[in-house]
Structure formats: structure tokens, C-alpha cells
């Protein structure tokens, strides 16, 4: 395929044929706002916020679906473009709840970001607003369709990546809405709660129930680690506020990219569960009692010492774990064979 040279904001760029203006601009470090575009999903061109001016063209094309042509001269922030984007934002805001104070998406919301960037306030187009009930029929995903801007990314990710198609556009015109079959909620729709729709939602329409009121994006520390469940090894970010894990999301790289399953995304409540063991326990008179570490370790040493003395190390068995780290398994292997003197070490590899 031959390459194409064009200019964007008077800078020249050469790209392979078939490259969109949006991608070509990104190669020059030029940021064009988008709502409905996602590099992992099919091209859509629905939201129009990414429109640009092309010299000689009568209309402003959507840069996410328009491929560059030889000699094209593109302007991404011209007066015409800015005016169009402001109008688009005014139209989106006309029907958007004025809820940034308590909205979970504040600080990570594209609508908020672009309204700020282009200085747009609500109120240019007074008119009817939606009053859909917030859907919270499940423990994980809150759907507030009043905030939905109909970018369709959730619909596409559910169909194109997750392959389940539990949501789609329904109704027409002003009443158009992303809904489950018969609008009966995610629980009845066969949703697996992978949360990929929440991950791609650019606004506060889809949020995580577990994280409500648990911290603003800028208050959270994000620690990249490996999911503790199955053997896929998804890369996750644990979101931490004041020493507590308040949520998790996909790290965006590794085998999983931005995707996770319900366990990896929503299954971390056990970390701070009140039943976590916080002190060593030793059985006395048939009951387990909390003791100090010193006492517990001494008890283990005394009892294993006695078994080793009377019967030899071969009378001790060790079960290592498919849950703990490599370093810890290596040490257990060393402890068993070298210190306890037994090769009876195994784990649940067969389960």
C-alpha cells in the first residue's frame, strides 16, 4: 500500500493509505477530542465532536472515519471547527443532568473535559430532559441513561469484543436509549458483568456501584499488579485511597488490555473483609486463641521439632500454594527440603 502525505495544522505527515485524519493527527501529537471513537472498536463517526476543517471541503468531516488523501490540508482547531464543537457540546449539555458535583465520573469525564476546554456551559438550548430511573439492579454496574450521550461504545464493546450483545440502541429520536432486551435490566439480559462497557463509557452514564462515594479519581493511587484469580494473569490497577483498596480496573496493557472478568474487576472486597485473620492463633484446650507471633512461631518450632526428632523429616508434609508468589513458593521449597528435611511438598496443581 502506498503512503500518503498531507498536512495537519500546517505540519506535514506521511501515513499509510487508509489512515484516518484522527490517527494521522495523533502521530503529529495533535489531540482531537472524541466521544464515540475507540481504536479497539469499529469506526462509528456518530458523535461529531472530532470534526475538522479540510481546505476546499464544504462540510466539516468527522476525523475518526475520514481517511486522509494525498495533499489534504486539515485544520483541527479552526474557528469553524471550534464553533461546531461548541454547538455539539451545547446540544449534548442541553439534555445532560447538571450533576458534576456528585457525579462519580467527575475528573474523568470527557464531556466535562471538553466543556471546560471549549468554555461551554449548559443552557444554550433549553428543552425537555430525560427522567429515566437509574438502573442499579446488580451489585456492579450502575446505568444512568440520563447521562448517556449515545456514543454507542458500550454497545460496540459488548458486541465486538465481549461477544454478548446484551445492550443495543432502542427507541427513536429523542427517546433513543441504550437498553437491554425489553429494557429489563442487565441481570435479566445475560450480562456477565465484565465491566468493559464501564471501561469505555466516556461520561457518567455507566459507573461502578462499588466505588460510589469512595474517592475522586485524583484522590486515588493506582498500583499496577497481577490479578489474583485464574491463570490468565490479567494486569490490573488497584485503586487505593487512604490505605484501602477501593476498586480495580484493567491496566490497559498485558494479556487483557482494557478487559477483565467480573472477578478481576469487582472481586476485591475480600482484601479488607472483617473476617481477615489479623493475629496468629494457637489451639489451647480445643479452641483457637489469638497469640503473639513469637508464641505461634515457638509452638510450630516445638511441635515440628518433636516430630522431626522422633520420626524424621519425612513425617512432615508441606502444601505450597498456587496463590502465593514465586518467591514464596521457592522459599517453601527451600524450607521443606533443607530445613524440615522432607521432599513431601506439593500443591493444588491437579485441582
Amino acid at each position, binding site marked *: 500500500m502506498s503512503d500518503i502525505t498531507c498536512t495537519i495544522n500546517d505540519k506535514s505527515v506521511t501515513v499509510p493509505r487508509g489512515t484516518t485524519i484522527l490517527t494521522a493527527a495523533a502521530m503529529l501529537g495533535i489531540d482531537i477530542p472524541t466521544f464515540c471513537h475507540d481504536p479497539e472498536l469499529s469506526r462509528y463517526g456518530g458523535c461529531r465532536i472530532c470534526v475538522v476543517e479540510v481546505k476546499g471541503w464544504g462540510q466539516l468531516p468527522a476525523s475518526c472515519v475520514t481517511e486522509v488523501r494525498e495533499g489534504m490540508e486539515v485544520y483541527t482547531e479552526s474557528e469553524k471547527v471550534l464553533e461546531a464543537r461548541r454547538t455539539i457540546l451545547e446540544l449534548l449539555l442541553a439534555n445532560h443532568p447538571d450533576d458534576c458535583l456528585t457525579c462519580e465520573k467527575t475528573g474523568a469525564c470527557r464531556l466535562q473535559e471538553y466543556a471546560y476546554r471549549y468554555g461551554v456551559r449548559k443552557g444554550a438550548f433549553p428543552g425537555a430532559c430525560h427522567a429515566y430511573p437509574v438502573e442499579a439492579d446488580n451489585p456492579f454496574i450502575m446505568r444512568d441513561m440520563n447521562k448517556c450521550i449515545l456514543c454507542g461504545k458500550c454497545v460496540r464493546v459488548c458486541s465486538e469484543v465481549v461477544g454478548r450483545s446484551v445492550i443495543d440502541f432502542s427507541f427513536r429520536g429523542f427517546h433513543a436509549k441504550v437498553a437491554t432486551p425489553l429494557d429489563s435490566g442487565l441481570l435479566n439480559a445475560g450480562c*456477565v458483568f465484565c465491566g468493559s462497557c464501564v471501561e469505555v463509557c466516556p461520561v457518567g452514564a455507566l459507573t461502578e456501584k462499588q466505588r460510589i462515594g469512595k474517592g475522586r479519581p485524583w484522590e486515588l493511587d493506582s498500583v499496577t499488579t497481577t490479578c489474583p484469580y485464574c491463570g490468565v494473569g490479567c494486569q490490573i490497577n488497584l485503586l487505593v485511597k487512604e*490505605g484501602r483498596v477501593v476498586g480495580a480496573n484493567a491496566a490497559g496493557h498485558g494479556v487483557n488490555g482494557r478487559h477483565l472478568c467480573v472477578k478481576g474487576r469487582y472481586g476485591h472486597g475480600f482484601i479488607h473483609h472483617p473476617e481477615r485473620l489479623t493475629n*496468629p492463633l494457637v489451639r489451647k484446650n480445643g479452641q483457637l486463641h489469638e497469640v503473639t507471633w513469637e508464641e505461634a512461631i515457638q509452638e510450630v518450632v516445638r511441635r515440628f521439632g518433636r516430630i522431626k526428632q522422633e520420626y524424621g523429616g519425612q*513425617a512432615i508434609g508441606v502444601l505450597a500454594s498456587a496463590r502465593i508468589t514465586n518467591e514464596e513458593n521457592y522459599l517453601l*521449597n527451600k524450607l521443606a527440603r533443607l530445613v524440615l528435611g522432607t521432599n513431601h511438598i506439593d500443591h493444588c496443581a491437579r485441582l
Partner: protein
Amino acid sequence: MTNSIDEIAGADLILAIGTNTTEAHPVISLRIRRAIQRGAVLVVVDPRKTELAELAHIHLQIKPGSDIALLNSMAKVILDENLWDKEFVESRCEGFEELVEAVQGYTPELAEELTGIPADSIRQAARAYATVGKATLLYTMGLTQHVCGTDNVLAAANLALLCGQIGRESTGINPLRGQNNVQGACDMGALPQFLAGYQPVADETCRKKFSEAWGGPIPDQPGLTVGEMMQAAIRGSIKGMYIVGENPVISDADANHVEKALNNLDFLVVQDIFLTETAKLADVVLPAASFAEKDGTFTNTERRVQRVRQAVQPIGNSKADWQIICALAEALGLPMRYQNPEEIFNEMAALTPSYAGIRYERLEKEGIQWPCPAADHPGTSILHQEKFVRGKGKFHAVAYLPPDELPDRQFPLVLNTGRRLFHYHTGSMTLRTDLREICPTEQLDVSVHDAQCLGLNQGDRVKVISRRGEVEMTVRISETVPRGMVFASFHFPEAAINKLTNHARCPKSNIPELKVCAVRIEKV
């Protein structure tokens, strides 16, 4: 896995045996879906109509435990129709004559009798696997948890060798491992016969290398596997056990037997993050920190070593497992002193050739797939490209062996066990999260036909009884199970299905036959 997760999306055909991927490895199922979108053929071998089976172009609904009959018969079709990769077999393999002889008797018609799969479907699947450019074979515990588990895997390997579907991108024999670090635990020598990096403990050179590095002698006889340890505990030859992060009372076959074994010990130490059913039996319980509270590495199913990073402080007075192990070693008179997990990793890597080139700083951005023998080695995404580890790929003659316990008059149904999407293993973690809200209890999947015969309705309470125990559960009438089979997960301690399962094991790997045992159902 011989290959990598990403490569699954590029396969022309996926042969998935005994893997409920959409529930047990959901993110891998995304790759399978992508392959299908690209036009790949999906062949699923499973007695249940899982979601993956619903996606399949060819669903071979096999009688549980008859995989060898199917795989041998596929090999026979491929041989008879001259579809095998002569060049690959000639140059890369040995033992071809044994294979030809071993599969000779397995006509698709005989296989149909043994597996319940129509002979023509077997032919169709065999032709498809042999003739596509890139076929990847995925399997999970549905293939392995049988008395013939090792032979099942060998039969699958035979097929891959015969068709040259290994050593190239998007091919291979790919077990999808079920736990975050089961691959790593095996790599690290948490196996009775191996030191780290699968170096045999019975081999004097290997033993010498470790005992010199560690500064002390290592016993020379391979030890016992989990199941054998439990039997030894009942016999009284194992007196004490140290169980770290495992819950065998719920996870192991024939749980009543396991409980009896642990109760028979003089001394039991359990180290875990919760007071699990196993910890409740212990004499000493040591509180461990969770994955979020420590640093280290896990190795995933595609052999990728990845970082675990501390996000929060250990809860209460709990400690990271490595710190507890070091404290025990010190108190037992052999100090192990490490500043941090990285020091442990470096010591391990110096003794483990497949990890030798891996260092924490190399894992900062992304993981590395072993073998990675040197600091400048990029890691290995595809195994066996030029040659096999042992040199030539060896065909193994394997023969069909029926399950240890088949249904009879007294116990007329087959119990199959596995996992559900919303929970994990023995539930010690997921049952303490919001996942419990969406999936609060276990239900027994019963086919429409069997429910009708037994007069069962949706939601009825029943007792499921095997020769080894009984549990009470609620019935879910389900189209996923075939007539004559019931299915339940082992996630819920209140419905501890492993009280029923059979501890009969594969003599080669000691894996228990968790996928087949005989039960009956009584209405409560």
C-alpha cells in the same frame, strides 16, 4: 502453554477440550471469539453444552472419560485419509509406528460407541484439525481430571505431532491453568519430585547444585503428592503438615477422607488470609497478607512472569508469606535473611535456568515468558520451534480406559464438577465479596429428562449421595448437562461437592478423577 494467549486469536481452528473457557478463563474466551470473528473454526469437546459449546461450529458432546477413544480415532482418520504431516513427523518426531499400531483399532464407529459422538462428526473434526494451516489445541481440567488424565494429554499431544500443529504461531498444546500462580508454583519446585525449574530431586547433580547454594543436605527420594500425603496421614506415617494458602478440605477429592487425614495428624499448621475450613482444623493458624499487601511475581498460564506490587499495608498483624517462612526457618535454626522478595527472586533465578535472565527491572513494563536463559534474552513466546526439549517429539501409544466409577443401579447418575463464572476455587475470597450477592449459593444442574424421571422441579432441595458422602443442594433444571449427568461447582463450603467425588487417581500424575463419579439424588 506451548504458545501464547494472544496467538489464539490468529488460529484457523481451535480444538477446545474440557475447557469451560467463558466461565473459568473469561479473558481468554475473548481471544477465541476474535478468532471466530476472523473466520476460525471452533471445535469443542465437552459433555456439557457450555457457552463455549454453543459458540462451536462442531460440538463433540463426549461421554465423560472417553477422550482417548475420540483422540485416537481422530488420529486414525487422519492416518487412513493420509492427512498427516509427513515432513514434520519424519524430521521432528519418533515412535510413529507405535502410534499407528495403537490407534489402528479405533475406528470412528468404535469411537462412536465409546464416546457417544457420531462417527461422521469425529471424521469431520479430524479432517478439519489436520487440514487447516494453524490449529491450536486448548484444554483444561475436563481432559486431565481422570484416572487416565496423563494419557488423555498424551493422546492430544499425539494429534498435534501427527499434524505438525506445534512449534509455530497459533498452534500448540495449550493447557489453560486455573490459578494465578499454579504455573509458578510448579516452576518453583513446589512438587515432590522437582526442585525449581523441574530439576529432578533424585538427580545427584541437581541436588548437589541446590545443597551447595543452600548450605545443607537435601533428601534424595522424591516425596509424596497431596493425595498420597493424605493417605500417609491416615496411615500415620505423616505426623505433621504445614499448609500454606490451600483449602484441601473443600478443594480435594473425597473431602471427608481429607478431613479425616488432617484430623489424624499430630500437628497441623495452616497459613492463610481467612480461617478457611482447613484452617479450622489447625493447631496453629498463621495470618498471611493478601496479594495486595506484598511484592513478588506470579507466572501465568503462558509462562509469563509478571510483577505483583504492594498496594496497601498488611491487614492487622498479618505478614507476607515470605516473611513468615523466613521467621520459621530462623526459629528452626537455619536463618533465611532477605531484605525483600527481589533478593529471593535473584537467588532463585541463579539456580533456575529457565528464569536465569529475568530480573525485576526487566519486568517493570511487561512480563517475560520463560525460558529466558540470559539477561539479553527476550523470553520465549512459542516453545518447540526448532526442536523439542527432549530432541524428537515422541508419540505415545495410549489406550482407552473407562472411568474408575461408573453409574450403576444404586448410583445411576454421573456427577461432573467444575467452576462457575462468579466464583473462584473454594470461595474463600469470592464468597467474601459482592460476587456473593449475584451468585449466593450453588445449585445442582440436572437435565430436563432426569428431572422429569425423578419428579424434580426447579428449586427443589435434594440430597446428592455418592459412596463417599452426601450434600444437600437446590436443583436447577438445565440444558447444559446431558441426560444422566449432574453438575455442580466446588466453590461453596455449605455445598461441599468434593465430599462426593472420587479419589481414584491417575497413576502417572496422581490427579484425582474429579470429573466422573456415580451419585444418586433423593428429594429432601
